[in-house]
């Protein structure tokens, strides 16, 4: 029953629309100060780091995210340290192909700040940082697109969790850090390079998933409308 996960590109170049469900799991690790956050970052499972960068996008939350990851958000609202929050917020996880390099980047930024402001070593946070990890179940919707135009027609009917899987989760599945759509388009040679470029410009971090889906639909529709004219 359990299949290996691969690219959405099947034989004959069809795009297989998949969907996913994500569930949160407590790790039992909590940080009550910046020093404790640093200590846990050293040992925490890499799935937890994934969750705190990406998982929040399909967990209960409201509208736009102020920061692109939970570490920055907690630093701002739990520790009231805007400086570190801003530094953590610019960390782009897709730039780090190895999860441990991403972990080291976070540790580096936190340690740098601990050296700058010694009181942050013992200052208690307003609320603890709860390290969560996640379990993701991926399943096939049996929906297929033979070419990008068919995919364009399918997108309005694709769930937001499916968008999460193909546009966000994909970035840490492929070493290139690209989404499934761009990966699939690259199989058509250079024919859809312009479409891929437009997709690369869609920022996945801040918009709610419904808005992200709308943005992707617009990119596809505008591309094909312009191609037809």
């Amino acid at each position, binding site marked *: 029953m359990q299949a290996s996960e691969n690219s959405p590109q099947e034989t004959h170049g069809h795009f297989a629309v998949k969907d996913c469900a994500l569930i949160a799991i*407590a790790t039992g690790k909590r940080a009550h100060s910046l020093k404790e956050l640093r200590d846990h970052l050293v040992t925490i499972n890499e799935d937890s780091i994934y969750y705190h960068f990406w998982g929040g996008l399909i967990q209960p939350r409201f509208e736009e995210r102020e920061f692109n990851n939970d570490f920055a958000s907690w630093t701002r609202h739990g520790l009231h340290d805007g400086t570190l929050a801003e530094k953590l917020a610019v960390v782009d996880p897709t730039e780090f192909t190895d999860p441990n390099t991403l972990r080291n980047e976070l540790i580096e930024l936190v340690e740098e700040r601990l050296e700058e402001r010694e009181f942050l070593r013992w200052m208690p946070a307003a609320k603890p940082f709860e390290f969560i990890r996640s379990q993701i179940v991926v399943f096939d919707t049996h929906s297929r697109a033979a070419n990008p135009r068919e995919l364009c027609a399918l997108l309005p009917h694709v769930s937001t969790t499916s968008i999460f899987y193909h546009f966000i989760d994909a970035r840490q599945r492929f070493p290139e850090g690209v989404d499934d759509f761009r990966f699939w388009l690259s199989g058509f040679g250079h024919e859809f390079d312009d479409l891929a470029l437009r997709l690369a410009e869609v920022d996945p971090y801040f918009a709610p998933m419904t808005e992200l889906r709308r943005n992707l639909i617009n990119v596809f529709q505008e591309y094909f409308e312009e191609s037809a004219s």
Partner: protein
Amino acid sequence: MSGMLEAYAKVSGEEVIDHLRQLSEPLAGMTIVHVNSTRVGGGVAEILDKLVPLSNELGIDTRWEVITGNMEFYQCTKSMHNALQGNPLRIPDHLYKAYEETNVANAERLRGVLEEADVVFIHDPQPAPLLGLCPNRKGKWVWRCHIDVSHPDRLVWKYLRQYLIAYDASVFSLPAFAQPLPNLEYIIPPSIDPLSVKNIALDADELHEVAERFNLDTSRPIVAQISRYDRFKDPVGVIRAYRLAKKFMPQLQLVLAGGGASDDPEGEMVLEEVHSAAEEDDDIHVLLLPADAHRTINALQRIADIIIQKSTREGFGLTVTEGMWKGKPVIGGDTGGIRLQVIDHHTGFLVNTPEGAALRMRYLFRQPEKMHEMGAKAREFVTDNFLLTRQLREYLTLSVGLLHGAANRIVIG
């Protein structure tokens, strides 16, 4: 599409139901059993009442078994419940004995069903020992904790823990509620049922009738707190907030409505304090409602302009979810699960004091457009995150996950 799924599709959206159907495919033909200690009354029974038939409509053979016990058993489990939520108390040995004997007797009756099931959900502490009494179990067993055990009485937790360590997984409502256990600890917030009597849409005539019954003037501003009379819900603090706001809004009315105080000595004491604090103010309506007054509560939440839940300590706070579902902004205490639901300046306001609550009342009533905008956002937020269909999705995800060896990433088909 079958009846119940169709009804939920109208509320949650077709997409949500399609998602559930696809997620349930790998569970087709399997048996899931839920076990709790009551068929009616209480949040767990309310949810199972809908979750079980919905799961069956999705093609999963899902059963709901209820354990039964004598008075001593319920005395024990009520004490356990209080102790696990942080009220230290000694439970006499004879009550523990009743707890164990009741589980042995129920295991005799249920063993066949439970040992054959693919997934068993044991809800709360009452049936927790059943796992150890089903030695030939073939499926995965999950302990679902619906209460806040973040600061339990250590002795009672130690006693209960012996029954929990063999479970394959446990489920808590919030990360902060989780206690260390040697199994997977899933986080699944609770949910409300949009089709229950407590949450269905009511017509204007019915709202008018309820307002008249309780002498509420719907042409004037109304705030309401629907809650048990419990110190942690701070009803006296709500009255103080109302008085502070009333100086600026003389037309303001306050509804405090709750039930179940008659069999709870502390509840009666708190209710007396509330009456005393309310003095003879005709605009403060202190209502003691029967436990099954769901429709009346629904109407009161809809009649109110703002829902207040000024708890100083709270589990998840489903009355907050219910108020938001009715399109009302919520002024909530900055604690527990209220923080997950009330998003400051978006779905309402988080407050720490009566003064803070009064300030937010004045702010909202002075800006009716803002109040309606926040109410609409609140309803949307509940639709996306806190309806029964989301909880079912997470139970299905958890079941698929456990049956596939609890790997972090499971790919099906």
